[in-house]
């Protein structure tokens, strides 16, 4: 696949057309949880609810196991996966605490101190990635 200009940004998944295609059914599942009646049905029987959404096995597993980063890698978008998180009582900040691997408290602490600096976070090479 041709490299995209934003592929060099570390720790970031840009939700573009390729991701959107891959994640379509996953994202449509997530967004269905915006409504209470759907949240009730999902919480009653997750497996049965997911049957209505023809997502890949990997995506389905990632939903059931709440693997937040993997969901994004498989085409999920944060505004969609955050609905699944909200269903579990996890807000945006706590979700970020999980995705960054920092944990909720140290993530919150970092934000109070002004957030993650741009220095050292512009290019994958600065993260020791290619």
């Amino acid at each position, binding site marked *: 696949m041709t490299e995209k*200009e*934003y592929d060099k*940004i*570390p*720790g*970031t*998944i*840009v*939700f*573009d*057309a390729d991701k*959107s295609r891959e*994640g*379509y059914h996953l*994202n*449509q599942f997530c*967004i269905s*949880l*915006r*409504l*209470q009646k759907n*949240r009730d049905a999902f919480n009653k029987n997750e497996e049965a609810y997911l049957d209505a959404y023809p997502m890949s096995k990997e995506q389905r597993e990632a939903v059931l196991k709440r693997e937040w*980063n993997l969901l*994004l890698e498989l085409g999920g*978008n*944060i*505004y*969609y996966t*955050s*609905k699944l998180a*909200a*269903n579990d009582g996890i*807000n*945006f*900040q706590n*979700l*970020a605490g999980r*995705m*960054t*691997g920092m944990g909720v408290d140290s*993530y919150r602490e*970092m*934000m*109070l101190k*002004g*957030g*993650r*600096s*741009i220095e050292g*976070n*512009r290019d994958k090479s600065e993260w020791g990635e290619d």
Partner: protein
Amino acid sequence: MAKIMAGVGCSHVPAIGVAMDTGITHEEYWKPVFEGFKKSREWMKKQNPDVIFLVYNDHCTAFDARCIPTFALGCGAEFQPADEGWGPRPVPAVKNHQKMASHIAQSLVLNEFDITIMNEMEVDHGLTVPLSVMFGDIKQNDEWPALVIPLCVNVVQYPAPTGNRCYNLGKAIRRAIESYEEDLNVIIFGTGGMSHQLQYKRAGLINSDWDKRFLDLMTADPVGASQITHLEYLRETGSEGIEMVMWLIMRGTLNENVTEVHRHYHVPASNTAVGHIILENNA
């Protein structure tokens, strides 16, 4: 004739709405965020606009992945606050100036901005949080002090429209508004931003220096700001910082020379840098 008095740039962090709705704005964490809007609320009272033209993005609420319009103009009579997964915000429905909205839609298309027309649409925090911070607490059974024409911009799926396109759309919106016959005071809101990244391992990115330069450009060099590339937004301001292209639509509706009457910047609100600016059109 309708007249554009001023433009407002403003973040629309959902947690700000939650803080207002749950009455915790006096807490240490939130105090500095709301302190910076005190002057804005007084200014809004003085301006007493008839219509607010509000540029925002929908966060997969009215539009899910089935339909992703780049620009969608609200032309329906009113818009209900949406349930975004934690219940609808307890704020009034947003009422449109329907006739003016239709006029703008028509004018834009004839000026070659082929926007989508929305006659049914729920509105999420992207629209209601800026209204709340600028007007203060408005009870659910009360009414917003102004009519609101919503313009939704896709910034969720890459690519968002370019800053240049947004700036030029602003100019077309100005022509549309100023050719509307009724005598109305109009204020334009450009919302979203500033630097923030909500997702994946780099979440929490904040770039205050960049944000402050952007605020400077909003006042003094909008054409320069309109040339900022998507790559720069994504890399320097985080994956969600690209929302700032929406401020350029607001800026495009104003004169090149404006007076900056207020500015506010604070980190953090949840994951986000809160930025706010008020620009008055020079006579």
